């Protein structure tokens, strides 16, 4: 019997497979039993109601999806009253994802949503910071440290910082989040992108630009996962382009303690239960006793050469 459990700080997950925020909701319970998952991660909410972006909100490009949904939110009150109780029927811990415009707003919001039934808070710091010219918090270490520190003083719940690939300071941002008191990192959110219909000249998203996700994002998010796992002591949760069990293995080998599945659920809504099953089979096949035995086992003997060539 393979031990699929994995620890993310104080939380023990029964397996390392969980959904990525924004690609999961109660409706998926009509497809499979959600208790087969390691955790439930809700769509990002804002404190006040938000309408979201104009349509088209999604489009496909080669091997990937672009989205500019725009965090439509029914608000915190509605979420706590209607959505949190839904997940109370499940054993899997509920991770809620929150967004706010400023570090102080994040902190107040974190305090408010710390209700029974919420096991951890994923901090969506890939959203624009209105006090920093609209730049995402997670683009730079300073704003990342500020927002996580303020949230840390506002709540005792585990804080998972969801990092952005839209930065040249991946390691510095990761270390800033850790130093400020984050309990885990999620690497990563979508990559800013765009698409144009060459025939009509029109942009293909209502919001012009949007986030790229799906298999095309995987090598980038895998690289970030590797960089962060080596640079911090807190757990790193890999996220980006995972659709096969090999993708899961790559992230675990790179150092992720768990993984999030996003766009693949849109392509195949049964992806997550399939990956739980296939991960167990694959560990058995490799005669590995546990997920732990695989985490961070990347063979990087040639790394010095690789980095030199890259430079």
């Amino acid at each position, binding site marked *: 019997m393979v031990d699929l459990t994995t620890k993310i700080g104080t939380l023990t997950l029964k397996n390392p497979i969980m959904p990525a925020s*924004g*690609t*999961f*909701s*109660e*409706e*998926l*319970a*009509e*497809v*499979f*039993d*959600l208790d087969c998952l390691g955790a439930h991660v809700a*769509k990002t909410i804002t404190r006040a*109601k938000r*309408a*979201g972006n104009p*349509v*088209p*909100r*999604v*489009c*496909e*490009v*080669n*091997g*990937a*999806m672009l*989205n500019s*949904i725009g965090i*439509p939110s*029914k*608000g915190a009150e*509605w979420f706590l009253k*209607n959505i949190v109780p*839904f997940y109370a*029927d499940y054993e899997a811990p509920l991770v809620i994802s929150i967004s706010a415009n400023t570090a102080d707003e994040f902190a107040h919001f974190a305090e408010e949503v710390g209700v029974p039934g919420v096991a951890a808070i994923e901090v969506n710091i890939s959203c624009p910071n209105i006090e920093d010219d609209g730049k995402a918090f997670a683009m730079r270490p300073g704003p990342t440290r500020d927002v996580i520190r303020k949230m840390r003083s506002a709540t005792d719940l585990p804080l998972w910082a969801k990092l952005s690939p839209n930065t040249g300071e991946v390691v510095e941002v990761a270390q800033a989040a850790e130093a400020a008191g984050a309990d885990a990192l999620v690497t990563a959110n979508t990559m800013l992108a765009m698409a144009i219909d060459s025939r009509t000249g029109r942009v293909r998203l209502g919001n012009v630009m949007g986030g790229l996700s*799906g298999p095309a994002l995987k090598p980038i998010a895998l690289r970030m996962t590797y960089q962060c796992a080596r640079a911090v002591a807190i757990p790193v949760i890999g996220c980006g382009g995972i659709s096969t069990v090999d993708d899961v293995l790559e992230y675990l080998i790179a150092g992720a303690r768990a993984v999030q599945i996003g766009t693949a*659920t*849109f*392509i*195949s*809504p*049964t992806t997550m239960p399939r990956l739980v099953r296939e991960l167990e089979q694959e560990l058995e096949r490799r005669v590995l006793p546990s997920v732990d035995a695989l985490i961070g086992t990347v063979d990087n003997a040639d790394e010095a050469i690789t980095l030199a060539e890259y430079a």
Partner: protein
Amino acid sequence: MPASLCVVPDSIFAGTSRQPSIHEVEARVKTHEWVNGQYRLLVLAAPASVLDCEPGQFFHLLCPQTDRFQPYLRRPMSIYSYDQMKGELAFLYKVTGTGTGAMAELKPGESLNIVGPLGQGFEIRPEWRRPLLVARGVGLATLAPLARECAQLGRPLTAICSARSPDLLMSTDLFRSCGAEVITVTDTDGTSSVENLTALIEGLIHSRGIDAFFTCGSARLLRMLQEIAARHGIGGQAALEQHMACGIGMCQACVRPFRREDGAATLRVCREGPVFDLQEVL
């Protein structure tokens, strides 16, 4: 309470029974024929689990990867017919883009991954005794299961089928086989204009006692029906299309604004629809 706070129906919480109602399955292509120059009829052998459908519902199809087309997202497609006895599920579709182009290359014996049935179907209310179906183009396919349902319920039915040209008129035989009175109008013979149809429908209201409208496939026809329905106090429903990603209700990509009693509401076409009250559609 603002309208947008009330849009998620209680039914989403029914998932706690832990019994799946949406299935992802492989279905085998039985036949796949051109019905005219633009439309193909795909008949699948499908397991019983996905055949408990309602007229107006849809499936989310994983179109194949081909040499010419590599669609990434699924494509939503309304059901043309479902038959539990025969174990058959059929789609009548227009070959237009990457997804349907790839689908058109499916051969008998090959497999297609489908997710469904999805969405809220048509509701034939007890007081709606004399329905009129008005559809254009691919909307004719969407209304086909509704015609069968009306026939089963013993509701006398009139169907107005609109198309660009007579060769693109589909489902007319199917509507007739359901006992429907079928009226065809086309652009080429100049009968499909809003003016012409308005006069025709006003006439049918008086002569046939039409008391419900069902429509799909044309924003122009939808607005016309909204006006006629409002004038005569007639109820009805419309099936809508929208770009989708997940098809299940998770991603919020396929939203549209709707008119609700307490103001405008943003609803998901995949989840709260694709069938909506006629007058709610903006």
